């Protein structure tokens, strides 16, 4: 694979994502700041509102990256321009998936890392950290699954189906882990506990991420016709 062109294609996508990246970061940090005002009214309004905003930001950002980055280029025919350059369809698809992953991982790492570092630095109770990491990794899973569905189907119907599936899975996921004493039950503890249940869940999430990314790169490369 020509690394130079591959890198330029990835850089090109990141350039087009730049405003989305900035907005996602600002909205993410803003919602986490709101979530940090969790005490005072007894019902944790700040925490609930902040987390709702945070989840909305992450999910919306993932949808934007998949739709705007991958599907839009096909719909507005600029894909033909890129494919006229010395790249194959397989290289093109791989570059799109890589750029989308990098774009999502940027704010994801900053927000996830920021919360962990801020918790450690301020000496707050860290019992919620494993739950937070599992939650953030799940958002990464939903993004990768959506990315794979969009990259493989390259259709609006596929994208909408993917959005429905991933959004439904978020509800189901929170419903299940919210009832788990090993995961959500320890969120209020003073010290983080990486229980076997948490580690198993994280392993399953990472496996799903790897599988989705592999399929997102491999299956489009097998297509006979790209336009």
């Amino acid at each position, binding site marked *: 694979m020509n690394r130079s062109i591959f890198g330029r294609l990835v850089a090109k996508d990141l350039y087009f994502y730049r405003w989305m990246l900035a907005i996602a970061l600002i909205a993410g940090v803003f919602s986490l700041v709101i979530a940090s005002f969790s005490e005072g009214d007894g019902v944790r309004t700040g925490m609930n509102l902040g987390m709702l905003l945070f989840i909305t930001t992450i999910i919306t950002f993932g949808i934007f990256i998949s739709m705007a980055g991958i599907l839009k280029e096909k719909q507005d025919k600029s894909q033909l321009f890129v494919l006229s350059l*010395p*790249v*194959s369809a397989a290289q093109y698809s791989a570059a799109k998936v890589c750029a989308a992953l990098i774009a999502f991982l940027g704010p994801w790492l900053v927000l996830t890392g920021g919360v962990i570092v801020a918790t450690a630095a301020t000496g707050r109770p860290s019992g919620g950290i494993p739950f937070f990491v599992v939650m953030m990794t799940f958002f990464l899973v939903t993004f990768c699954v959506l990315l794979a569905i969009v990259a493989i189907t390259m259709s609006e119907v596929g994208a909408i189906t993917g959005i429905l599936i991933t959004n439904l899975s978020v509800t189901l996921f929170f419903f299940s882990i919210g009832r788990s004493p090993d995961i959500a039950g320890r969120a209020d503890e003073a010290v983080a506990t990486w229980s076997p249940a948490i580690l198993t869940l994280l392993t399953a999430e990472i496996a799903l991420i790897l599988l989705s990314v592999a399929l997102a790169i491999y299956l489009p490369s097998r297509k006979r016709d790209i336009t």
Partner: protein
Amino acid sequence: MSNAAIEFNGVSKRYPFFALEDISFRLEKGQIMGLVGPNGAGKTTTMRILMGLIRQDAGEVEMLGRAIPHDQVRAKWDVGFVSEEMRLFSGATLAWHMSFVRSIYPDWDERYANTLLKRFFLRPEQKIKGLSRGEHVKALLLLVLARRPRLLVLDEPTAGLDPVARHEVIAELMEVLLDDGRSILFSSHNTLDVEQISDAITFIDRGRIVESDDKESFVERWRRITVEGAPAGQLPPVPGNVDITRSGHLAVITTNAWQPGMLAPWEQAGARVHEIHRMTLEEIFVANVLHKRKERGE
């Protein structure tokens, strides 16, 4: 490895409601070929197979001596492709596109790019979404021509352009042709454009090649001859006779094998040649396509 710029050999591609069948033609290096066909004839599918965007079901394709689609990446270094449907990134400027393409192609000719900017009256700082259709095509051509490719593949580049923009685009292409080493495959349903710049023509209709030959040969071979006073059925058979229409005692004969001496048998049979009409490319195209459809019983 072939010496042709493009070679199609028995290429087929099937869709549920359309099939490209047994496409074979050859574009020599330094030659300009017009691929002419009505809408839906298979021009775009042919071009996309050539560019590796669609994989053929059967047959071989070579571009600049490289097998397509397997070796498309190496072939595309020397190929500029512009299609009617192709769009640049609407939110970016032309300057951004120039910088993007320049970063990929080491042979990017900055001076030529600037000349084209002036000639096409394009402003690099303008966003693509603000360009008219004609300006957009010119921007695409600029990005392709400034790379100095050995082969240009142009799929209906003048479609939807006003006459002035069309003239400017064709004029620029004609200038490109001054470089003898450069080859062009140019598809269009506008025979006037093709006639201006091509030196070889391939007619395509309903997914099949109708005929492929030099432009001069087409123009020299095809005539529409009006004869008078020849009773029906009494004209001697003529080679290359593709159509006869009668109106009263006049008969209009279309032939694709014109030779000055071929009229003698008709005159001996009592016919008087009224007019010998040198056909335009459009007339040749229509007559050729209709003749082939009739031959195939379509």
